[in-house]
Protein backbone atom coordinates (compact mmCIF):
# COMPACT_ATOMS: atom_id res chain seq x y z
CA UNK A 1 0.00 0.00 0.00
CA UNK A 2 1.41 3.35 -1.02
CA UNK A 3 1.80 5.96 1.67
CA UNK A 4 2.14 9.59 0.86
CA UNK A 5 0.52 12.99 0.81
CA UNK A 6 -3.07 13.54 -0.22
CA UNK A 7 -4.49 16.67 -1.78
CA UNK A 8 -8.27 17.01 -2.00
CA UNK A 9 -9.14 19.48 -4.74
CA UNK A 10 -12.86 19.89 -4.04
CA UNK A 11 -14.16 20.29 -0.50
CA UNK A 12 -17.30 22.31 0.06
CA UNK A 13 -17.37 24.65 3.04
CA UNK A 14 -20.23 26.93 3.86
CA UNK A 15 -21.69 29.34 6.40
CA UNK A 16 -23.95 27.91 9.05
CA UNK A 17 -26.22 30.95 8.86
CA UNK A 18 -26.42 33.62 6.20
CA UNK A 19 -25.76 36.35 8.73
CA UNK A 20 -22.19 35.01 9.02
CA UNK A 21 -21.77 36.38 5.51
CA UNK A 22 -23.64 39.59 6.24
CA UNK A 23 -20.88 40.57 8.67
CA UNK A 24 -18.56 40.96 5.65
CA UNK A 25 -20.97 43.07 3.59
CA UNK A 26 -21.40 46.83 3.41
CA UNK A 27 -23.84 48.16 5.99
CA UNK A 28 -26.42 49.25 3.42
CA UNK A 29 -26.56 45.86 1.75
CA UNK A 30 -26.72 44.18 5.13
CA UNK A 31 -29.72 46.31 5.94
CA UNK A 32 -31.42 45.37 2.68
CA UNK A 33 -30.88 41.68 3.20
CA UNK A 34 -31.84 41.71 6.88
CA UNK A 35 -35.00 43.69 6.28
CA UNK A 36 -36.12 41.62 3.29
CA UNK A 37 -35.20 38.24 4.68
CA UNK A 38 -33.79 37.41 1.24
CA UNK A 39 -32.02 34.06 1.05
CA UNK A 40 -29.02 34.38 -1.24
CA UNK A 41 -28.76 30.66 -1.71
CA UNK A 42 -31.70 29.51 -3.83
CA UNK A 43 -33.66 26.44 -2.89
CA UNK A 44 -32.61 23.25 -4.60
CA UNK A 45 -34.10 22.79 -8.03
CA UNK A 46 -34.98 19.13 -7.55
CA UNK A 47 -36.01 17.13 -4.49
CA UNK A 48 -33.35 14.90 -3.03
CA UNK A 49 -34.23 11.51 -1.66
CA UNK A 50 -32.14 12.20 1.42
CA UNK A 51 -33.87 15.51 1.93
CA UNK A 52 -30.64 17.36 1.32
CA UNK A 53 -27.85 16.95 -1.23
CA UNK A 54 -25.29 16.16 1.47
CA UNK A 55 -24.00 13.14 3.34
CA UNK A 56 -26.53 12.67 6.10
CA UNK A 57 -23.74 12.03 8.59
CA UNK A 58 -22.07 15.37 7.95
CA UNK A 59 -24.34 17.73 9.90
CA UNK A 60 -22.89 19.62 12.82
CA UNK A 61 -23.49 18.49 16.41
CA UNK A 62 -26.39 20.95 16.75
CA UNK A 63 -27.73 20.26 13.27
CA UNK A 64 -25.57 22.87 11.56
CA UNK A 65 -25.40 22.57 7.77
CA UNK A 66 -22.87 20.09 6.40
CA UNK A 67 -19.61 21.80 5.58
CA UNK A 68 -20.15 24.62 8.05
CA UNK A 69 -18.26 23.17 11.00
CA UNK A 70 -14.49 22.95 10.79
CA UNK A 71 -14.32 20.30 13.51
CA UNK A 72 -16.68 17.98 11.66
CA UNK A 73 -14.78 18.48 8.41
CA UNK A 74 -11.51 17.83 10.20
CA UNK A 75 -12.78 14.72 11.93
CA UNK A 76 -14.54 13.24 8.92
CA UNK A 77 -12.13 14.14 6.13
CA UNK A 78 -8.83 15.81 6.99
CA UNK A 79 -7.62 13.57 9.80
CA UNK A 80 -8.93 10.09 8.93
CA UNK A 81 -7.72 10.31 5.35
CA UNK A 82 -4.46 12.08 6.00
CA UNK A 83 -5.31 15.05 3.84
CA UNK A 84 -2.27 17.25 3.32
CA UNK A 85 -4.16 20.08 1.68
CA UNK A 86 -7.83 20.66 0.92
CA UNK A 87 -9.15 23.33 -1.42
CA UNK A 88 -12.31 24.84 0.01
CA UNK A 89 -14.75 25.75 -2.73
CA UNK A 90 -17.97 27.00 -1.11
CA UNK A 91 -21.31 25.30 -1.60
CA UNK A 92 -21.03 25.77 -4.47
CA UNK A 93 -20.35 29.43 -5.15
CA UNK A 94 -23.13 29.96 -7.65
CA UNK A 95 -24.57 32.64 -5.39
CA UNK A 96 -21.98 35.05 -6.77
CA UNK A 97 -23.49 34.72 -10.24
CA UNK A 98 -26.80 36.25 -9.18
CA UNK A 99 -28.48 38.12 -12.05
CA UNK A 100 -28.20 41.32 -10.01
CA UNK A 101 -24.54 42.02 -10.76
CA UNK A 102 -24.08 44.35 -7.80
CA UNK A 103 -25.49 41.80 -5.37
CA UNK A 104 -23.40 39.06 -7.01
CA UNK A 105 -20.22 41.07 -6.68
CA UNK A 106 -21.00 41.89 -3.04
CA UNK A 107 -21.65 38.23 -2.30
CA UNK A 108 -18.34 37.29 -3.92
CA UNK A 109 -16.40 39.86 -1.91
CA UNK A 110 -18.10 38.89 1.34
CA UNK A 111 -17.67 35.18 0.72
CA UNK A 112 -13.96 35.56 0.02
CA UNK A 113 -13.42 37.73 3.10
CA UNK A 114 -15.49 35.33 5.23
CA UNK A 115 -13.50 32.36 3.96
CA UNK A 116 -10.16 34.03 4.69
CA UNK A 117 -11.23 35.30 8.11
CA UNK A 118 -13.05 32.26 9.44
CA UNK A 119 -11.49 29.22 7.78
CA UNK A 120 -8.04 29.56 6.27
CA UNK A 121 -6.17 30.33 9.45
CA UNK A 122 -7.76 27.49 11.37
CA UNK A 123 -5.71 24.76 9.81
CA UNK A 124 -2.59 24.88 7.61
CA UNK A 125 -4.13 22.22 5.44
CA UNK A 126 -6.95 24.48 4.31
CA UNK A 127 -6.63 26.51 1.15
CA UNK A 128 -9.22 28.74 -0.43
CA UNK A 129 -10.73 29.64 -3.77
CA UNK A 130 -11.45 33.15 -5.00
CA UNK A 131 -15.11 33.07 -5.96
CA UNK A 132 -16.00 35.77 -8.46
CA UNK A 133 -19.09 37.33 -9.97
CA UNK A 134 -18.28 36.27 -13.51
CA UNK A 135 -21.28 38.05 -14.97
CA UNK A 136 -19.19 41.23 -14.86
CA UNK A 137 -15.74 40.01 -15.89
CA UNK A 138 -13.96 43.28 -15.14
CA UNK A 139 -15.38 43.18 -11.62
CA UNK A 140 -14.32 39.56 -11.31
CA UNK A 141 -10.80 40.54 -12.35
CA UNK A 142 -10.76 43.24 -9.68
CA UNK A 143 -11.77 40.72 -7.05
CA UNK A 144 -9.06 38.31 -8.16
CA UNK A 145 -6.48 41.05 -7.82
CA UNK A 146 -7.95 42.12 -4.45
CA UNK A 147 -7.70 38.78 -2.63
CA UNK A 148 -5.91 36.44 -5.01
CA UNK A 149 -2.54 37.36 -3.55
CA UNK A 150 -3.44 35.89 -0.15
CA UNK A 151 -0.95 33.06 0.39
CA UNK A 152 -3.71 30.53 1.05
CA UNK A 153 -5.93 31.48 -1.87
CA UNK A 154 -5.02 28.85 -4.43
CA UNK A 155 -7.40 29.18 -7.34
CA UNK A 156 -10.06 31.29 -9.01
CA UNK A 157 -13.45 29.58 -8.88
CA UNK A 158 -16.04 29.86 -11.64
CA UNK A 159 -19.32 28.11 -11.05
CA UNK A 160 -22.33 29.36 -12.95
CA UNK A 161 -21.78 31.09 -16.25
CA UNK A 162 -23.27 34.36 -15.11
CA UNK A 163 -23.62 35.77 -18.61
CA UNK A 164 -25.02 32.63 -20.18
CA UNK A 165 -22.01 32.54 -22.53
CA UNK A 166 -19.41 29.78 -22.77
CA UNK A 167 -16.61 30.68 -20.40
CA UNK A 168 -13.98 30.80 -23.15
CA UNK A 169 -15.81 33.63 -24.92
CA UNK A 170 -13.66 36.77 -25.14
CA UNK A 171 -16.03 38.64 -22.83
CA UNK A 172 -14.58 36.58 -19.96
CA UNK A 173 -10.95 37.12 -20.81
CA UNK A 174 -10.29 39.79 -18.16
CA UNK A 175 -10.79 36.99 -15.62
CA UNK A 176 -8.08 34.85 -17.18
CA UNK A 177 -5.75 37.80 -17.57
CA UNK A 178 -5.97 38.43 -13.84
CA UNK A 179 -5.67 34.75 -12.95
CA UNK A 180 -2.61 34.30 -15.14
CA UNK A 181 -1.09 37.50 -13.74
CA UNK A 182 -1.39 36.13 -10.19
CA UNK A 183 -0.39 32.61 -11.19
CA UNK A 184 -3.71 31.18 -10.03
CA UNK A 185 -5.36 28.28 -11.83
CA UNK A 186 -8.99 28.72 -12.80
CA UNK A 187 -11.33 26.03 -11.50
CA UNK A 188 -14.64 25.49 -13.30
CA UNK A 189 -17.09 23.63 -11.10
CA UNK A 190 -20.14 21.87 -12.42
CA UNK A 191 -23.66 22.31 -11.35
CA UNK A 192 -24.95 25.80 -11.46
CA UNK A 193 -26.08 26.52 -14.96
CA UNK A 194 -29.55 26.82 -13.57
CA UNK A 195 -30.08 30.54 -13.51
CA UNK A 196 -30.65 30.70 -17.25
CA UNK A 197 -32.52 27.57 -18.42
CA UNK A 198 -29.41 26.03 -19.91
CA UNK A 199 -29.07 23.00 -17.73
CA UNK A 200 -28.78 20.49 -20.55
CA UNK A 201 -28.50 20.59 -24.31
CA UNK A 202 -31.93 19.06 -24.90
CA UNK A 203 -33.80 21.34 -22.54
CA UNK A 204 -34.76 21.41 -18.89
CA UNK A 205 -34.13 18.07 -17.13
CA UNK A 206 -37.25 16.70 -15.52
CA UNK A 207 -35.63 15.11 -12.49
CA UNK A 208 -32.51 15.18 -10.37
CA UNK A 209 -31.67 11.84 -12.00
CA UNK A 210 -31.72 13.45 -15.44
CA UNK A 211 -29.98 16.62 -14.30
CA UNK A 212 -27.29 14.83 -12.29
CA UNK A 213 -26.46 12.53 -15.21
CA UNK A 214 -26.08 15.44 -17.62
CA UNK A 215 -24.68 18.10 -15.32
CA UNK A 216 -21.21 17.92 -16.84
CA UNK A 217 -22.39 19.03 -20.30
CA UNK A 218 -21.95 22.70 -19.61
CA UNK A 219 -18.38 22.32 -18.41
CA UNK A 220 -17.52 20.26 -21.49
CA UNK A 221 -18.81 23.18 -23.51
CA UNK A 222 -16.89 25.68 -21.39
CA UNK A 223 -13.56 23.91 -21.84
CA UNK A 224 -14.24 23.45 -25.54
CA UNK A 225 -14.73 27.18 -25.83
CA UNK A 226 -11.36 27.74 -24.17
CA UNK A 227 -9.81 25.92 -27.13
CA UNK A 228 -11.96 27.44 -29.86
CA UNK A 229 -11.56 31.00 -28.61
CA UNK A 230 -7.79 30.67 -28.30
CA UNK A 231 -7.73 31.26 -24.54
CA UNK A 232 -4.56 29.20 -24.12
CA UNK A 233 -2.90 31.11 -26.95
CA UNK A 234 -3.78 34.44 -25.38
CA UNK A 235 -2.91 33.27 -21.85
CA UNK A 236 -0.13 30.70 -22.34
CA UNK A 237 0.52 30.26 -18.61
CA UNK A 238 -3.10 29.72 -17.67
CA UNK A 239 -4.01 26.47 -15.93
CA UNK A 240 -7.57 25.17 -15.70
CA UNK A 241 -9.08 22.63 -13.32
CA UNK A 242 -12.38 21.02 -14.29
CA UNK A 243 -14.24 19.98 -11.17
CA UNK A 244 -16.87 17.32 -10.73
CA UNK A 245 -17.73 16.42 -14.30
CA UNK A 246 -16.37 12.88 -14.40
CA UNK A 247 -13.76 11.59 -16.78
CA UNK A 248 -15.18 9.40 -19.50
CA UNK A 249 -16.12 12.35 -21.72
CA UNK A 250 -12.42 13.19 -22.14
CA UNK A 251 -11.43 10.77 -24.93
CA UNK A 252 -14.54 11.66 -26.92
CA UNK A 253 -13.89 15.39 -26.64
CA UNK A 254 -10.19 15.12 -27.46
CA UNK A 255 -10.78 13.02 -30.58
CA UNK A 256 -13.66 15.15 -31.77
CA UNK A 257 -11.84 18.41 -31.21
CA UNK A 258 -8.69 17.14 -32.91
CA UNK A 259 -10.66 16.02 -35.96
CA UNK A 260 -12.71 19.21 -36.20
CA UNK A 261 -9.62 21.37 -35.68
CA UNK A 262 -8.02 20.25 -38.94
CA UNK A 263 -11.29 20.48 -40.86
CA UNK A 264 -12.16 23.94 -39.61
CA UNK A 265 -8.78 25.56 -39.09
CA UNK A 266 -9.63 28.25 -41.59
CA UNK A 267 -12.39 29.60 -39.39
CA UNK A 268 -10.23 29.77 -36.28
CA UNK A 269 -6.56 29.95 -37.32
CA UNK A 270 -5.59 31.27 -33.88
CA UNK A 271 -5.96 27.66 -32.70
CA UNK A 272 -2.39 26.89 -33.61
CA UNK A 273 -2.05 23.45 -32.04
CA UNK A 274 -4.04 20.28 -31.81
CA UNK A 275 -6.67 20.75 -29.10
CA UNK A 276 -5.43 17.64 -27.31
CA UNK A 277 -2.06 19.36 -26.91
CA UNK A 278 -3.71 22.31 -25.19
CA UNK A 279 -5.47 19.90 -22.86
CA UNK A 280 -2.28 18.13 -21.89
CA UNK A 281 -0.54 21.37 -21.12
CA UNK A 282 -3.30 23.44 -19.56
CA UNK A 283 -6.11 21.25 -18.22
CA UNK A 284 -6.43 19.17 -15.06
CA UNK A 285 -9.57 17.24 -14.09
CA UNK A 286 -10.80 16.05 -10.71
CA UNK A 287 -11.51 12.37 -10.28
CA UNK A 288 -14.93 12.76 -8.69
CA UNK A 289 -17.39 11.51 -9.77
CA UNK A 290 -15.38 8.49 -10.87
CA UNK A 291 -17.44 6.51 -13.31
CA UNK A 292 -18.51 3.17 -11.93
CA UNK A 293 -17.66 0.82 -14.79
CA UNK A 294 -18.43 -2.89 -14.19
CA UNK A 295 -14.68 -3.55 -13.98
CA UNK A 296 -12.22 -0.82 -12.92
CA UNK A 297 -9.86 -1.50 -15.81
CA UNK A 298 -12.61 -0.69 -18.30
CA UNK A 299 -12.48 2.92 -17.23
CA UNK A 300 -8.73 3.23 -17.01
CA UNK A 301 -8.18 1.38 -20.30
CA UNK A 302 -10.60 3.75 -21.97
CA UNK A 303 -9.07 6.82 -20.37
CA UNK A 304 -5.60 5.61 -21.33
CA UNK A 305 -6.46 6.08 -24.98
CA UNK A 306 -5.67 9.70 -24.09
CA UNK A 307 -1.90 9.73 -23.87
CA UNK A 308 -0.72 11.00 -20.52
CA UNK A 309 -4.19 11.06 -18.95
CA UNK A 310 -2.72 10.02 -15.61
CA UNK A 311 -0.89 13.37 -15.52
CA UNK A 312 -4.18 15.28 -15.77
CA UNK A 313 -6.11 13.77 -12.89
CA UNK A 314 -6.42 15.23 -9.38
CA UNK A 315 -8.18 13.52 -6.51
CA UNK A 316 -11.30 15.16 -5.14
CA UNK A 317 -13.75 13.89 -2.54
CA UNK A 318 -16.51 16.49 -3.05
CA UNK A 319 -17.05 16.26 0.71
CA UNK A 320 -19.72 16.66 2.16
CA UNK A 321 -21.93 16.23 -0.89
CA UNK A 322 -24.08 13.14 -1.15
CA UNK A 323 -22.27 11.90 -4.26
CA UNK A 324 -18.86 12.03 -2.64
CA UNK A 325 -16.13 9.62 -3.73
CA UNK A 326 -14.53 7.91 -0.77
CA UNK A 327 -10.74 7.76 -0.90
CA UNK A 328 -10.28 4.01 -0.59
CA UNK A 329 -12.90 3.40 -3.29
CA UNK A 330 -10.96 5.64 -5.65
CA UNK A 331 -7.68 3.97 -4.74
CA UNK A 332 -9.02 0.54 -5.59
CA UNK A 333 -10.35 1.64 -8.94
CA UNK A 334 -7.24 3.39 -10.21
CA UNK A 335 -3.96 1.65 -11.09
CA UNK A 336 -1.38 1.77 -8.32
CA UNK A 337 1.13 3.33 -10.70
CA UNK A 338 -1.23 6.32 -11.02
CA UNK A 339 -1.65 6.90 -7.30
CA UNK A 340 1.15 9.31 -6.50
CA UNK A 341 0.22 11.44 -9.50
CA UNK A 342 -3.51 11.46 -8.82
CA UNK A 343 -3.29 11.91 -5.06
CA UNK A 344 -0.72 14.71 -4.92
CA UNK A 345 1.84 15.19 -7.69
CA UNK A 346 -0.55 16.49 -10.33
CA UNK A 347 -2.19 18.85 -7.85
CA UNK A 348 1.21 20.17 -6.81
CA UNK A 349 1.98 20.93 -10.42
CA UNK A 350 -1.42 22.59 -10.86
CA UNK A 351 -1.18 24.77 -7.78
CA UNK A 352 2.58 25.25 -8.03
CA UNK A 353 3.18 23.64 -4.66
CA UNK A 354 6.30 21.85 -3.63
CA UNK A 355 5.74 18.26 -2.56
CA UNK A 356 8.38 18.66 0.12
CA UNK A 357 6.44 21.54 1.69
CA UNK A 358 3.17 19.66 2.10
CA UNK A 359 2.18 19.33 5.76
CA UNK A 360 2.77 15.86 7.11
CA UNK A 361 -0.58 14.08 7.35
CA UNK A 362 -1.90 13.34 10.84
CA UNK A 363 -2.70 9.85 9.61
CA UNK A 364 -1.61 8.59 6.25
CA UNK A 365 -4.26 6.52 4.54
CA UNK A 366 -2.80 6.59 1.07
Amino acid at each position, binding site marked *: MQHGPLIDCDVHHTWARQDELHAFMPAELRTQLDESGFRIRPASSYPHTGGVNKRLDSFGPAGEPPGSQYEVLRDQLLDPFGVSRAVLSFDIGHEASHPNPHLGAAIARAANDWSIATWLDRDPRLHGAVIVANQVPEEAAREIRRVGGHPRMSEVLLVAGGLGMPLGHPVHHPIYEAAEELGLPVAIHVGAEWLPPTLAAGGLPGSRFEYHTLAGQSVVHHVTSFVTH*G*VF*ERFPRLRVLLVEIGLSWLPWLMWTLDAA*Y*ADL*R*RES*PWVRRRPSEYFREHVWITTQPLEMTPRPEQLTDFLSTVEGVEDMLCFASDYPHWDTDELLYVKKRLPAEWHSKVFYENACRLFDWSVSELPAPAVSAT
Partner: protein
Amino acid sequence: MSEAVDIGAASDFPDGAVRPVEVRGRTVGVLCWNGELYAFANRCPHMGAPMCMARPVTRIEARGPGELESPAGPPVVACPWHGWEFSVDDGRALADARSRLRTYAISVQDGRVLLDPARHAAAARA
Protein backbone atom coordinates in the same frame (compact mmCIF):
# COMPACT_ATOMS: atom_id res chain seq x y z
CA MET B 1 18.86 13.82 -66.05
CA SER B 2 15.49 15.47 -65.82
CA GLU B 3 12.47 13.28 -66.17
CA ALA B 4 10.23 16.25 -66.81
CA VAL B 5 7.15 15.76 -68.94
CA ASP B 6 5.71 18.42 -71.21
CA ILE B 7 2.09 18.79 -70.08
CA GLY B 8 1.05 21.66 -72.31
CA ALA B 9 1.34 25.35 -73.11
CA ALA B 10 1.48 27.80 -70.23
CA SER B 11 -1.64 29.42 -71.67
CA ASP B 12 -3.52 26.14 -71.09
CA PHE B 13 -3.49 26.80 -67.33
CA PRO B 14 -5.70 29.77 -66.45
CA ASP B 15 -4.95 31.71 -63.31
CA GLY B 16 -6.87 30.78 -60.18
CA ALA B 17 -7.99 27.29 -61.23
CA VAL B 18 -6.84 23.72 -60.61
CA ARG B 19 -6.61 21.63 -63.79
CA PRO B 20 -6.18 17.86 -63.71
CA VAL B 21 -3.56 16.40 -66.05
CA GLU B 22 -2.48 12.82 -66.65
CA VAL B 23 1.24 12.26 -66.22
CA ARG B 24 2.64 8.77 -66.66
CA GLY B 25 -0.50 7.10 -65.45
CA ARG B 26 -1.27 9.35 -62.52
CA THR B 27 -3.59 12.30 -62.21
CA VAL B 28 -1.92 15.49 -61.05
CA GLY B 29 -3.56 18.78 -60.11
CA VAL B 30 -1.95 21.88 -61.61
CA LEU B 31 -2.72 25.28 -60.17
CA CYS B 32 -1.79 28.61 -61.66
CA TRP B 33 -1.82 31.38 -59.03
CA ASN B 34 -0.67 34.90 -59.77
CA GLY B 35 1.22 33.54 -62.74
CA GLU B 36 3.08 30.87 -60.76
CA LEU B 37 2.46 27.18 -61.34
CA TYR B 38 2.13 24.51 -58.66
CA ALA B 39 1.48 20.76 -58.99
CA PHE B 40 0.23 18.24 -56.48
CA ALA B 41 -1.21 14.75 -56.19
CA ASN B 42 -4.87 14.05 -56.73
CA ARG B 43 -5.16 12.46 -53.29
CA CYS B 44 -5.62 14.16 -49.94
CA PRO B 45 -3.35 12.56 -47.32
CA HIS B 46 -6.23 12.71 -44.79
CA MET B 47 -8.76 10.37 -46.39
CA GLY B 48 -7.90 10.27 -50.10
CA ALA B 49 -10.23 12.98 -51.43
CA PRO B 50 -9.67 14.07 -55.06
CA MET B 51 -7.46 17.13 -54.73
CA CYS B 52 -7.97 18.11 -58.35
CA MET B 53 -11.30 19.37 -57.05
CA ALA B 54 -9.59 21.37 -54.32
CA ARG B 55 -10.43 25.03 -54.00
CA PRO B 56 -7.55 27.46 -54.21
CA VAL B 57 -8.03 29.90 -51.35
CA THR B 58 -6.20 32.84 -49.90
CA ARG B 59 -3.86 31.92 -47.06
CA ILE B 60 -5.44 33.03 -43.77
CA GLU B 61 -3.49 33.15 -40.51
CA ALA B 62 -4.10 34.88 -37.17
CA ARG B 63 -2.01 37.31 -35.15
CA GLY B 64 -4.10 36.33 -32.15
CA PRO B 65 -7.64 35.29 -31.26
CA GLY B 66 -10.00 37.13 -33.58
CA GLU B 67 -7.20 38.95 -35.44
CA LEU B 68 -7.04 37.50 -38.94
CA GLU B 69 -4.32 38.30 -41.41
CA SER B 70 -3.49 37.27 -44.93
CA PRO B 71 0.29 37.03 -45.19
CA ALA B 72 2.06 36.99 -48.50
CA GLY B 73 3.16 33.58 -49.62
CA PRO B 74 2.20 30.58 -51.66
CA PRO B 75 -1.48 29.93 -52.00
CA VAL B 76 -3.42 27.25 -50.22
CA VAL B 77 -5.68 24.56 -51.60
CA ALA B 78 -8.58 23.35 -49.48
CA CYS B 79 -9.65 19.73 -49.69
CA PRO B 80 -13.09 19.30 -51.30
CA TRP B 81 -14.22 16.97 -48.52
CA HIS B 82 -13.08 18.09 -45.06
CA GLY B 83 -11.53 21.41 -45.95
CA TRP B 84 -8.00 20.60 -44.86
CA GLU B 85 -5.73 23.35 -46.16
CA PHE B 86 -2.38 22.60 -47.78
CA SER B 87 0.32 25.02 -48.78
CA VAL B 88 0.98 24.28 -52.44
CA ASP B 89 4.70 25.02 -52.30
CA ASP B 90 5.67 22.21 -49.95
CA GLY B 91 2.36 20.42 -49.45
CA ARG B 92 2.27 20.86 -45.65
CA ALA B 93 -1.14 20.93 -44.02
CA LEU B 94 -1.68 24.24 -42.23
CA ALA B 95 -3.37 22.49 -39.30
CA ASP B 96 -0.68 19.84 -38.89
CA ALA B 97 2.71 20.17 -40.51
CA ARG B 98 3.24 16.42 -40.14
CA SER B 99 0.64 15.81 -42.82
CA ARG B 100 1.67 16.52 -46.39
CA LEU B 101 0.06 16.66 -49.80
CA ARG B 102 2.45 15.22 -52.38
CA THR B 103 3.78 17.99 -54.61
CA TYR B 104 5.71 17.89 -57.85
CA ALA B 105 8.39 20.01 -59.47
CA ILE B 106 6.90 22.14 -62.22
CA SER B 107 8.39 24.86 -64.41
CA VAL B 108 7.85 26.82 -67.61
CA GLN B 109 10.41 26.81 -70.40
CA ASP B 110 9.85 28.53 -73.72
CA GLY B 111 6.13 28.76 -73.02
CA ARG B 112 5.78 25.03 -72.28
CA VAL B 113 4.92 23.58 -68.86
CA LEU B 114 7.25 20.85 -67.67
CA LEU B 115 6.35 18.59 -64.76
CA ASP B 116 8.70 16.09 -63.14
CA PRO B 117 6.65 13.43 -61.32
CA ALA B 118 9.78 12.12 -59.62
CA ARG B 119 10.75 15.36 -57.86
CA HIS B 120 9.03 17.20 -55.03
CA ALA B 121 8.35 20.85 -55.55
CA ALA B 122 10.33 21.88 -52.47
CA ALA B 123 13.38 19.94 -53.64
CA ALA B 124 13.19 21.60 -57.02
CA ARG B 125 13.21 25.05 -55.45
CA ALA B 126 16.09 24.28 -53.11
